């Protein structure tokens, strides 16, 4: 039964990835500009028509787009993501170099955001009408209205330029030993921006679902029968966390969106920054590879969320939905 369910999930994930890659491929080709000429940068103007045609042939750009996509997909399904002419290296090497950097950022963000928002949301939701309850609602709206880009620039101006406390770019000090402490030190600002721009909405979500649970029938029954507030709180959290985890799942793609902005701003060499760079120079193989690998990570995250949901919700576990 589990094998069948797993198989279904893998097929679904693959279909999602194919659709995403298909859309990306076509949007990429619909955008103005041409990778062959972009490859030559400023010299592109000096190329003759014949030279241009030969370069396009070499890149395979003379074929219909659908055919090009088919070729790319066929190779990708066999694990070959192509070669970056711009970088002179295989795409997979470039991606593998950058993937851990993005994962570090996102996993830490997710960890801090969930821990903080669950704690805040529970405190606030249990004390309806309190200062914390109202304060958190306001903070949530305010923090989600601030663009991460703007917040990042503000942080760089205050903490890097004015105060000089924290580095504004890079992942390690060039003179340093590249150790963990140095990495974390460089991560403080990008991480803070990502956490602040997500934690408010997450806390607000839990706060609301804690309130709903707090007014539910079984809680009234428990209170009427003198069950301790500590036990009631644990029941409430246990139930409120289910829609919350679902919401985290829905929001995971937006963490990657946020990391594109933050990585670019703080020169963090992750996939987000790579994505932006490859769009600029029209490095199609790298761009497609980056989109694909982010897609794979998102699909895996959603799978983990699904497993979590099944663990948390006895109805899914025992109701035969698996």
């Amino acid at each position, binding site marked *: 039964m589990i094998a069948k369910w797993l198989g279904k999930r893998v097929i679904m994930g693959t279909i999602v990835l194919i659709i995403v890659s298909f859309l990306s491929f076509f949007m990429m080709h619909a955008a103005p500009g041409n990778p062959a000429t972009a490859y030559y940068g400023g010299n592109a103007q000096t190329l003759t028509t014949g030279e241009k045609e030969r370069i396009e042939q070499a890149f395979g750009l003379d074929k219909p787009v659908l055919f090009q996509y088919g070729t790319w997909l066929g190779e990708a399904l066999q694990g070959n993501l192509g070669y970056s002419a711009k970088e002179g290296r295989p795409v997979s090497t470039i991606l593998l170099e950058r993937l851990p950097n993005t994962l570090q950022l996102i996993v830490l963000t997710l960890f801090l955001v969930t821990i903080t928002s669950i704690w805040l949301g529970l405190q606030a939701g249990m004390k309806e009408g309190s200062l914390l309850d109202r304060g958190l609602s306001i903070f949530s709206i305010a923090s989600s209205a601030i663009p991460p880009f703007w917040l990042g620039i503000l942080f760089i101006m205050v903490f890097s330029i004015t105060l000089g406390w924290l580095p504004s770019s890079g992942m390690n000090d060039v003179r340093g030993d590249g150790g963990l402490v140095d990495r974390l030190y460089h991560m403080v600002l990008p991480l803070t921006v990502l956490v602040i721009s997500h934690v408010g909405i997450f806390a607000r979500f839990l706060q609301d679902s804690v309130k709903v649970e707090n007014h539910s029938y079984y809680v009234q029954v428990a209170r009427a029968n003198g069950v301790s507030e500590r036990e009631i709180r644990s029941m409430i959290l*246990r*139930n409120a966390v*289910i829609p919350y985890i679902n919401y985290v799942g829905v929001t995971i793609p937006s963490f990657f969106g946020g990391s594109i902005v933050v990585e670019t701003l703080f020169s963090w060499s992750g996939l987000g920054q790579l994505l932006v760079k490859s769009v600029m120079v029209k490095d199609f193989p790298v761009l497609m590879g980056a989109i694909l690998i982010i897609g794979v990570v998102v699909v895996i995250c959603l799978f983990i969320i699904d497993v979590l949901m099944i663990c948390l919700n006895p109805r899914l576990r025992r109701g035969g939905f698996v």
Partner: protein
Amino acid sequence: MEVLSNKGGDHIFKIENVAVHLNGKYLIHDVSFTVPKGQITAVIGESGSGKSTTLSALLGMLPAQAVMEGSILFNERNLMELSEQERAGLRKKHFFTIFQDATNSFSPTLKIKQQLYRLTASRLGQKEEAFLGKITAILKDLNLPEDVLNRYPFELSGGMLQRCMLACAFYNEPDVLMADEPTSALDMLHQQEFIKLLKNLHARLGATIILITHDLGVAAIADSMIVMKNGEIVEAGQVAEIFKEPKHPYTKRLVANHF
């Protein structure tokens, strides 16, 4: 109005001129009655007549914005003078309450075992081992299979869940058992079974029972009875007397429809 249900004067609750209003509207009004110790008192009345509000007043669990007037004496202690904490203490030590909707009375994600533990042994400060032995015996008495303890609420029927609540009452041996329409969400068969078990509990524990219902058939097991309409008590007395000779037109109609 004057209530004569307990001439001996040995009552556990004495409710005097209680009114509850919420946002300028009276939910109940001029409610006075006594609850004789060790007897079953039925509160009967149509939907919206103020039965549940009366119960909430006894439990000290009215909505936060509600304002209450009058006095409620429990064992001669005025509940109005107690702090929120002391009231919670009363609910824990002396009362147990069963509500109408058994299927929603339990948290959906916790096994019955943990929930029954929280509703019984935990509030009395007992360890889980002692709890398991005692609750298993009670469940058996109530015709519940032992494996309900390892089930989730959605895996049990309303009738079974209501019997689980009753099991808690057997376990806790409260001074006062309150039940707010405990059978109206059950089918006929389970209704009769539940009422039988409730009588059984009363015989065994001698607890005072306040039984809210809109069903005269259920009220028939009570000793005395209070009839409510539009937030007021319209009639009160011994069940046998009211059945024989109802005074208020509303009660007359109820009794006429029942027999």
